[in-house]
């Protein structure tokens, strides 16, 4: 696997700026380790309990992604994030027993503390949106990783640091 890590900030920022200006969609970004290796959504008896791993996979399939991205210096939702989160909210309403943890991340260029603070702010913005869409607040917990789990994503052939994002993690 090509492990050449580049700074995502510039690329993502450029992509986000383009998206905001021209309303074009971002390049499809697959979280590493999930692309191609996704277990198929279980097709068993409806309502059968699924493992959290299977539910996470189901969320990714149904909502398009478990991750929304942010500009390096902001915590506002862009049209792409809103589309993804609207679908995540639909999935949460369709799966009333699922609980999620929203994991916010700062960027590699933020200071240690500021990354923790802005990761929390981003995760809270996502929570507020999901609650506005009708998801019960007690089903959602929020945390920030700051820049402690930089992560990486594949954009076409290159792997870049994922940076500013919020990941919806099914916990139950």
């Amino acid at each position, binding site marked *: 696997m090509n492990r050449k*890590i580049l*700074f995502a*900030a*510039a690329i993502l920022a450029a992509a986000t700026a383009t998206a905001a200006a021209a309303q074009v969609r971002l390049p499809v970004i697959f979280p590493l380790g999930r692309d191609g290796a996704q277990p198929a959504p279980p097709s068993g008896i409806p309502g059968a309990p699924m493992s959290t791993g299977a539910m996470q996979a189901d969320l990714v399939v149904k909502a398009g992604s478990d991750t929304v991205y942010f500009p390096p*210096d902001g*915590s506002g939702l862009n049209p792409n994030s809103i589309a993804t989160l609207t679908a995540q909210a639909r999935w949460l309403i369709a799966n009333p027993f699922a609980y999620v943890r929203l994991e916010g991340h700062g960027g590699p*260029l*933020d*200071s*240690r*503390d*500021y990354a*923790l*603070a*802005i990761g*929390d*702010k981003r*995760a*809270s*913005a996502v*929570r*507020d949106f999901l609650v506005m869409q009708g998801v019960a607040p007690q089903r959602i917990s*929020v*945390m*920030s990783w*700051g820049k*402690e*789990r*930089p*992560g*990486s994503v594949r954009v076409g052939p290159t792997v870049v640091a994922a940076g500013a994002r919020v990941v919806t993690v099914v916990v139950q």
Partner: protein
Amino acid sequence: MIPTALLKRLLLLLLPLLGLGTAPALAQERSPTASVIAVPPFAITKNVDTDAGNTWSIANQIADLISADLNTTSSFIVANVKDIRIPSYPEVTAPSYPTWRAARVKLLLSGFVSARNDGRLTIGCYLYDVQSGREVARQGFAVTPGEWRRAAHRCADAAYVEATGNSPRFDSRIAYVAESGSPDSPVKRLAVMDFDGASHSYVTEGDATVMSPSWSPTGNRVAYSSFRDGRLHVRIVDLATRQDRPLLPVNEPSFGPAFSPDGRAIALSMSAEGNTDIFTVDSSGGYPRRLTTSQAIDTSPSYSPDGNRIAFVSDRSGSPQIYVMDFDGSNQRRISFAPGAYGSPTWSPDGERIAFTRTEGPTSRIGTIAAGGSGERIVTSGPRDEEPEWSPDGSKIVFQQYDAATRRTLLATVPADGGEVRAIPTPQGGSDPAWAGRKE
């Protein structure tokens, strides 16, 4: 590039140090007022075996460590004493001045090591002005054999303080976060060591990511941020007992602690409903008191040395900038105005300046600014220098830098006014350094 002649001189200076466990350091440009000092091997009364080796080898290592310490400053030229007879035990307190005058040294730092009946060592050191034939300082210690380094650092401090009039600098420790594992999911452990990288020990196990250590003013406790139990919170550890507990009785995420100079309070960041503000709490625990109330991010508090003010970061203007407020949260005012993002402000020991990280585009550098907001200076060249802290005497700034070759974050120092960046040796990668003097 370093000229060959200088390199040869450096090698000569370094040769006696190599292979003895001391960190080789490049000698700085000597100032014209540098004092030539002789540090002959310490005398022993009798060669006795200890847990830390025999007293003869300790006596030699003490002299080497003192020389290494003094060589890190521009105030001394450590004389080559290889060809001079090692002072005997009686000569430590009655030096043969003509010998040292002939060697053209200005100062003589001589001492002894002697094993005590209780298993400890007595280490004495004496500083003489060779020209006038006077003793100018002395220090004596009763230490466990494993603590000889502290005694040596304090002997070096005695000479440094006497010759320069500055505050002591060698008996100091650095707390930092040791990093290993993959960059995506690093193992981060709290660690402490002497300022030169010696006496290294880990404080946490690495099962939880930790960040941002802050020393208590007496140097016996460290507050830090931790993800232990899957929850971001400030913890406080007693280094002697290793007793380690959460600081706050609340569930809101807390991080980035900073001790007040009197050790009674800790300022920290706490998030609630997506908004991070600065709080203070009694360092023995209890409920935090809120200092900032803006809807923007307020974080990274650092106390002024008199405890009356707190520097912090806020993005209330639209980008992260440095602000200063009184210790109770009043009088908040912005002091940085340049483009880019500021982070991690930290107040100098003399209270005059505030060091920070400034990020412009993909580049982060360390800088300082007067506490009133004038005279901003950038002192490192990047590309990713972060998390500055001052040395206890204010002469240097320690920070983390990214080494592209190894893809690791490493610790380094730079003179507070800028200059040569030097690495601090650590067993693994290192980040978030904090530097403290030691007090009895």
